[in-house]
């Protein structure tokens, strides 16, 4: 039996250590196992490691699963793990996987199934980092572990030896990835003898391929097709929450480039530094409409930068109200009775609905008096400009891929400080000293409950400041031939053949 999957994006290489992109990891998970597994809700579970615990402030002990065999029949052991961890910084591509081992200072093999991993200081989230730490065979990959040889070695299949549910057959960049079942998989035998992952980036084409019966299942059904798909008897639509949340970001610098008075004159100061203005913006946003109309139901209103239930998200944060009158009043109060004009930037081609949400946002803000020029542009232009701090008001999605807050708040809400490796993505110069302190402390807390409380507090503070305004949480839809598959959506949006079963 063959399962053909139409995916939006595929791997960039067969070397699992090459890229940190979700679609890359998703493909790699078919062939390789990770040390730590993340479940459908991103909770961490045993993978090739059966258990782990911190044995002191900067050492974690990992116990490995015994009896696991690589596709070439050789045994999996601690040597392979050490090899993989050490290989990553050497061979990683530009979308670097080094982040998964950034805290690792050294690896000691205690016995074939026990490892000690030393970290640079307290690394409370190390197991979370390891959910995408793919284990390659230290023998098969030995000759293919330099930047020059890695991709070729894996793309040719010579080194593409994992312990995962499927064996590598063939792959072309941007083309098909063909896999064949690993009958000796430690989790059991998968349902499909052959799995073909076809890369079909265009949403409509992918859907068309499903409807035309060329593929059995597709990911990322676009929100525009979702309603129609629901009504389509030939196709099942499977909806799942995504980790992506759309955040509006307001520049906090003294001078900001893309804001001016309605008559075009320069403003005395950056209005976004005024909390009242930020609150006014929050009140101007009708999240319900955004979800129901713009996303056609494919999303949820969001009140914070992480989905509910994630480690560090707070239940104490209220859902913001929509109250345009109050927004106008606040603006007037802040000294902008006539509003002002601002250029809003966002991507139009990165996440489902990004351009549309952005335009909806523009309408809502304009209606309370903030004349908003919407620029929904290509990510090619958007991201470099955003990195240059060219924008005053911009929106993009952020996915909490690790399922916990240090990742999200650490990147966005901490002031940008390379010394502590935090705030790299804080592109609005947001600074709240309390938040900074909380985040720095949280990163060192090995106690999970204590850490959770700290991050929840940080999240509450950040959301109260309204420099980051969370709008909606995206949802994602898979399409499948009607009645053919049993399918459980995953939070990280992965489409994993092993976990898809034929319907009874």
């Amino acid at each position, binding site marked *: 039996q063959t399962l053909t999957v139409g995916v939006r994006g595929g791997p960039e290489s067969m070397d699992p250590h090459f890229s940190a992109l979700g679609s890359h990891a998703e493909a790699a998970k078919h062939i390789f196992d990770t040390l730590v597994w993340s479940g459908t809700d991103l909770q961490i579970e045993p993978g090739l490691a059966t258990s782990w615990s911190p044995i002191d402030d900067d050492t974690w002990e990992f116990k490995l699963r015994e009896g696991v065999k690589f596709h070439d029949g050789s045994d999996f052991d601690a040597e392979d793990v050490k090899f993989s961890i050490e290989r990553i910084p050497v061979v990683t591509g*530009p979308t*670097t996987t080094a982040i998964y081992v950034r805290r690792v200072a050294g690896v000691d093999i205690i016995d074939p199934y026990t490892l000690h991993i030393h970290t640079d200081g307290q690394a409370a989230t190390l197991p979370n980092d390891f959910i995408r730490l793919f284990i390659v065979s230290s023998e098969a990959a030995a000759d293919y572990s330099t930047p020059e040889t890695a991709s070729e070695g894996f793309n040719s299949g010579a080194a593409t030896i994992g312990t995962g549910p499927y064996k590598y057959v063939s792959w072309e960049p941007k083309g098909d990835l063909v896999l064949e079942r690993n009958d000796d998989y430690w989790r059991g035998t998968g349902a499909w003898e052959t799995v073909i992952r076809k890369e*079909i980036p265009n949403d409509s084409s992918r859907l*068309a391929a499903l409807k035309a019966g060329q593929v059995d299942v597709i990911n990322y059904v676009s929100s525009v097709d979702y309603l129609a798909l629901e009504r389509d008897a030939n196709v099942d639509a499977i909806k799942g929450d995504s980790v992506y949340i759309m955040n509006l970001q307001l520049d906090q610098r003294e001078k900001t480039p893309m804001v001016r008075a309605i008559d075009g004159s320069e403003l005395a100061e950056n209005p976004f530094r005024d909390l009242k203005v930020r609150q006014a913006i929050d009140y101007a946003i009708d999240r319900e409409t955004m979800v129901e109309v713009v996303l056609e139901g494919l999303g949820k209103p969001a009140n914070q930068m992480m989905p509910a239930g994630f480690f560090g998200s707070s239940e104490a944060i209220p859902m913001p109200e929509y109250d345009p009158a109050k927004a106008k009043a606040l603006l007037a109060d802040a000294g902008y009775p006539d509003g002002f004009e601002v250029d809003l930037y966002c991507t139009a081609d990165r996440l489902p609905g990004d351009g549309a949400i952005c335009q909806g946002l523009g309408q809502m803000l304009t209606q309370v008096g903030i004349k908003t020029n919407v620029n929904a542009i290509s990510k090619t232009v958007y991201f470099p400009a955003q990195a240059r701090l060219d924008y005053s008001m911009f929106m993009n999605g952020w996915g909490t891929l690790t399922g916990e807050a240090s990742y999200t708040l650490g990147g966005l809400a901490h002031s940008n400080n390379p010394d502590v490796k935090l705030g790299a993505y804080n592109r609005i110069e947001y600074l709240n000293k309390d938040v900074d302190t909380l985040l720095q402390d949280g990163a060192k807390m090995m106690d999970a409950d204590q850490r959770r409380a700290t991050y929840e507090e940080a999240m509450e503070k950040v959301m109260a400041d309204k420099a980051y305004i969370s709008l909606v949480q995206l949802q994602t839809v898979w399409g499948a031939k009607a009645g053919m598959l049993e399918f459980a959506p995953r939070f990280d949006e992965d489409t994993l053949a092993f976990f898809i079963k034929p319907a009874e």
Partner: protein
Amino acid sequence: MLGFIIQRLIQATGVMAVMSVIVFCGVYAIGNPIDIVIPPEATQEIRAEAIRRLGLDRPLYEQYFIFISNLLQGDLGRSFVYNIPVLDLIGTRLPATLELVLISVLSATFLGVSLGIYAGYRPDSWVSKMIMAVSVLGFSVPSFWVGLILILFFAVNLGWLPAGGRGETVEIWGVAWSFPTLNGLSHIVLPAVNLALFKLAMMIRLARAGTREIMLTDTIKFARAAGLSESTILRRHLLKLISIPIITVFGLELGSTLAFAVVTETIFSWPGVGKLIIDSITVLDRPVMVAYLILVAFLFVTINFVIDLVFALIDPRVRHGVSA
């Protein structure tokens, strides 16, 4: 002929130099490719490391000279995104484009020339008017729109043909082709039609214009005066006489389609080189962009050269170096 070859080589070098400089400067102007490919969670340190790894920390001119010196050693560089030699990347995708383009351009040419000759030969018949109407449409309607309608109609509504992708392939000379299998062929039909439509229109117009002009010349009058039948005149005289512009356009179209079937490849998810380049542009994969453009320049030079050879083959005046 030698002069011609040298001239072409000079031109090619020119295009390649200009193109590579433009791409280098352009990518530099847009921003750092790293910001597109690097994941959000990376620290500054890791970002810096990735930049260094790709050599993006050096001054632009230095990067350029490294590129040039590698080029002179036959190394076109490695993709930022895939970390494999650009040539390999392009090589794996070229056959897909090649077969699609050849099929569509060839069939468009044969059909277009036949229809065009008919329309030019009987300019006032209603069939000719129909042909011309079709050609105006084919000429005008943007191809992405046509592609969409084709999918909607043939793949979704009727379900006759697959909506996209490449289908089964067969290895010949170590390269995967899909045209020999029925399944593969069925995948080619829609994208090929989509690609061919514009070319068909173009060929019709070209052949018609040529036919109308040639049919009024003394050469044809003289052939008629000698009692040649109309079919002989069309086959032996007209066809040769209109061939020069048709071959020129055929070559250019072949080249530009090979280089850039991106719209069709996007809509039909055809894993060809056109798709590759637009993807590379969107992620600023500079080595691929530069290498690709250089190869395109090469392609055009080669095609032009082949066209010249063909001219020499069919037109004795060219062969003998007489300016026509």
